[in-house]
């Protein structure tokens, strides 16, 4: 089975050195890209080349290396802008990752705009990183959090969303793609509805940017954030997009070098312009540059081809795993991206994950940092197979056969 005439998955796999290694004496089948994607040689080279050839601190130096490093880092920012379809690089903030991006919005926009008597809307399927920053702030500021629950197939309950909008929330914060269920949410429609109700919209893009073409202007979201390491780039780097007018009005969060205009004990301190106002201290320069290389790499593959390939893998995984006795899929939304989550009757996810590991197959088991979701579903967790550009249909077959074999041992 091939995904399209142009998608050569074996040529793509060959670009990922780690995929040629073995685990427990078996070839590695890596189905944990939703936790973190592996890195193509182009990304590894970009980071290594920067460290071995270009490195210097950025923005302040007059010497050649400082200028080259600054150009490379700001060039990466432009690549991110183009990839997300943002208007200006002033709207693209380098942050540590999705978690960091959400915390930045909570601590700046949230601290300025949310107080007693206000409310915000989250959903049942949020990752802890889009719950806890808001809970921490709510505890301090005294606003309410309303939660949109799920339909049985793992889609969000639209009617309840409308009811919550009628409460006049200041913010609606939700994920584009569920990390535990794979559900793709209709960001454009929800954002329009939230805007009509007067709410600001933050979207967690950690699980969408790796799989789908995202255009922030078309979606009209106010904030959008994602992590570099899930988009084939390094850990410790991510992006927060924000509409310029919103970012401009937000106070800075972390203070330090780089984010200032002038600093004075006598006359007070003024702040730098966007995006530097939010980027205190020396950033993760090599990470930013390698993230730019990762987006280049994804665009080289082609986002549409990537999405189509992963759709084939997801469909095939559903079909093959359905053959296993006692299989129960968790999350069967009509529109899913990159994730198949499941349980087998009478088998604990931990046991299944342990045996799959022995067979060289890397899946994730547990609550996937979505405890409120697992509690609501009444399950301890799931086994999650997640897909990347490099997974093959043959690997999915291997997964299904291994799951059947392990389940037979465990029952």
């Amino acid at each position: 089975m091939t995904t399209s005439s142009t998608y050569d998955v074996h040529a793509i796999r060959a670009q990922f050195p780690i995929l040629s290694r073995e685990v427990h004496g078996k070839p590695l089948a890596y189905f944990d890209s939703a936790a973190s994607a592996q890195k193509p040689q182009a990304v590894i080279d970009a980071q290594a080349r920067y460290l071995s050839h270009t490195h210097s601190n950025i923005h302040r130096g007059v010497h050649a290396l400082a200028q080259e490093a600054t150009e490379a880092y700001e060039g990466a920012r432009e690549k991110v802008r183009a990839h997300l379809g943002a208007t200006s690089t002033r709207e693209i903030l380098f942050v540590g990752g999705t978690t960091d991006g959400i915390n930045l919005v909570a601590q700046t926009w949230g601290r300025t705009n949310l107080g007693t008597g206000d409310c915000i809307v989250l959903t049942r399927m949020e990752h802890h990183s889009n719950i806890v920053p808001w809970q921490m702030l709510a505890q301090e500021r005294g606003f309410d959090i309303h939660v949109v629950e799920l339909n049985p197939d793992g889609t969000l309950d639209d009617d309840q969303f409308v009811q919550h909008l009628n409460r006049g929330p200041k913010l609606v914060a939700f994920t584009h793609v569920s990390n535990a269920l794979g559900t793709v949410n209709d960001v454009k429609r929800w954002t329009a509805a939230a805007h009509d109700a007067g709410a600001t919209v933050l979207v967690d893009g950690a699980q969408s940017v790796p799989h789908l073409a995202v255009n922030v202007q078309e979606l009209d979201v106010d904030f959008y954030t994602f992590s570099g390491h899930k988009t084939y780039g390094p850990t410790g780097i991510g992006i927060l997009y924000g509409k310029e007018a919103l970012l401009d009005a937000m106070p800075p969060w972390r203070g330090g070098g780089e984010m200032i205009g002038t600093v004075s004990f006598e006359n007070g301190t003024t702040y730098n312009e966007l995006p530097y106002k939010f980027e205190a201290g020396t950033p993760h320069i090599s990470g930013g540059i390698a993230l730019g290389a990762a987006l280049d790499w994804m665009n080289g593959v082609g986002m549409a081809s990537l999405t189509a390939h992963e759709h084939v893998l997801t469909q095939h995984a559903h079909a093959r795993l359905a053959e296993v006795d006692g299989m129960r899929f968790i999350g069967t939304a009509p529109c899913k991206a990159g994730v198949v989550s499941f349980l087998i009757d009478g088998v604990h996810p931990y046991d299944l994950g342990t045996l799959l590991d022995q067979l060289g197959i890397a899946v994730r088991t547990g609550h996937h940092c979505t405890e409120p979701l697992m509690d609501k579903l009444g399950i301890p967790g799931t086994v999650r197979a997640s897909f990347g550009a490099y997974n093959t249909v043959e690997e999915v077959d291997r997964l299904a056969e291994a799951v059947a074999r392990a389940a037979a041992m465990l029952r």
Partner: protein
Amino acid sequence: MASTIDPRQAEIAEEFAMFGDWMEKYEHIISLGRELAPMDPADKVDDNLIKGCQSRVWLAAKRDDRGHVHFAADSDAIITKGLVALMVRALSDAPAADIAGANLTFLDEIGLHSHLSPTRSNGLQAMVKQMKLYGLAFTAGG
């Protein structure tokens, strides 16, 4: 100190040496889990729950007239339960001081040390710590 625990560890290591590959080893662990004496429902309570991130482990301890500590344990995951059974076999019905001072090496010897790693989040490491704490408490006459 001649420990009652070390001969038991040696016996477990010998038992596992028979297995040719990991499949046989895990099949044996799974069957040990199935054979583990059921825990008294009165002991399988939240107070005795050692929360791992992924699998849950319950552990209860009693001391008899001779000063030996007896453990009862359970887990909701069968592989964890098999490993729990091995821990109970190594440490239960032993003098409290032997348990407190036990140097558990058998998981290393049978190639399952990774199951004790905190990153496995299976509750096993916390269980061993709790077993030793019981040993210590009962040694002190608690």
